[in-house]
């Protein structure tokens, strides 16, 4: 085995950075979309209308029981198919980026739903009663009193889920997207330096996620104080 040779990395930095841009873009959009959809699902799961609650519950259980890689695959193959059916145009295309975005958002929403549901339930009945006693509608009670408190309590968990999601974005290599890991792989293939590039990628993922976890931990202690 030859010695490690890192020389192909400096020249590839712009390409790798581009890949990181895609990873972070995926992360932020999926987090935002996932939290929005997750909040909606959480409200449905807690709704008094049984069928709605059951439907939301089935959604959550489904997505939490299948591997993320499969969901990414499905949407990659399924989304263009559905679009063609809907529009009737044989050349309708979605592209791997958008299908990945949809897959991540739908998948993450299931996990965010459970975090947010726990957050909503952690707000005491007394707070709900006080809001109702002022004459607020159910929607106002949620929007003005319950959700703001739930989110404040849930921020560390939501961020921790975001760190997991960041690592999971690397799965888009299966649909040939050049996220950070994909970009590193491509450079490694080109230069015959896969080991070095994957080591480098691992170090970068580790550094970012470790720093982010530490940040979340500090935030959690501050919120508790």
């Amino acid at each position, binding site marked *: 085995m030859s010695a490690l040779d890192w020389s192909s990395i400096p020249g590839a930095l712009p390409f790798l950075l581009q890949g990181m841009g895609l990873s972070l873009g995926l992360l932020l959009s999926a987090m935002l979309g996932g939290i929005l959809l997750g909040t909606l699902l959480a409200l449905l799961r807690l709704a008094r209308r049984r069928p709605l609650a059951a439907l939301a519950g089935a959604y959550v259980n489904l997505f939490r029981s299948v591997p993320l890689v499969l969901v990414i695959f499905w949407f990659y193959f399924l989304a263009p198919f559905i679009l063609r059916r809907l529009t009737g145009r044989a050349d309708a295309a979605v592209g791997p980026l958008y299908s990945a975005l949809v897959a991540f958002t739908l998948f993450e929403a299931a996990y965010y739903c459970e975090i947010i549901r726990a957050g909503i339930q952690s707000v005491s009945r*007394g*707070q709900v*009663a*006080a*809001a*109702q*006693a*002022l*004459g*607020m*509608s159910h929607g*106002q009670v949620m929007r*003005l*009193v319950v959700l*703001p*408190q739930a989110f*404040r309590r849930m921020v560390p968990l939501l961020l921790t889920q975001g760190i997991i999601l960041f690592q999971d974005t690397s799965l888009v290599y299966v649909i040939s997207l050049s996220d950070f890991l994909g970009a590193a792989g491509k450079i490694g293939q080109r230069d015959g330096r896969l080991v070095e590039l994957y080591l480098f990628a691992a170090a970068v993922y580790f550094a970012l996620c470790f720093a982010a976890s530490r940040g979340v931990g500090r935030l959690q202690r501050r919120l508790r104080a």
Partner: protein
Amino acid sequence: MIEISGISKWYGPRQVLRECSLHVKKGEVVVICGPSGSGKSTLIKCVNGLESFQRGEIRVDGISVGDSGADLPRLRSRVGMVFQHFELFPHMRALDNVNLGQIHVLGRSPEEAARKSRELLARVGLAEHADQYPAQLSGGQQQRVAIARALAMDPIAMLFDEPTSALDPEMISEVLEVMTALARQGMTMLVVTHEMGFARSVAHRMVFMDEGRIVEDAPTPAFFDSPQSERARQFLSRILRH
């Protein structure tokens, strides 16, 4: 103003209210007392529909609370409620706590609401604390903000559920003073409390509850001087000894 007529309530198989009837006229102050678990909180929460009941009827200002078609939010916006544990919204400053219902329920402009809130905070002696968060206030101060929050809705009646029982002794009087002033201004009040000094000085009538029943309902002097039931006598002697 508040007419409770023969209401009964069950939690599962357990009956917690047994044919309770109680009328509170406009401007009247009625104090409810009784041992813990006797159903006082449940009864008072039925008045603004925070709890449901299975039998009987409650009318507030002519509107039937138990009706399936009753506009509960609208009814609640007209009846103030003060809770044992204050229940201020912890993510908002005192001023915003008092503003909230005015803006989102009554539709007042933020400026109008803030003017009213500052006036009310001054009235409960907290003009200086408008910008503080609940966690920065003492229990007594929090409860006074909660009273201001309820008064901001211009309620036709006020419900109090043991407003001083979660307070340190030295803070009880500051809350009772605010409530006494309110009673003297003619507010219709239904108050669950064990503060018998307060009850004696402001209540027009005393109601004693035991095991889900209204056992006694009498003018205040009569209740203290000659309680009719053995249970009320026992209760009074126990509570007045302290």
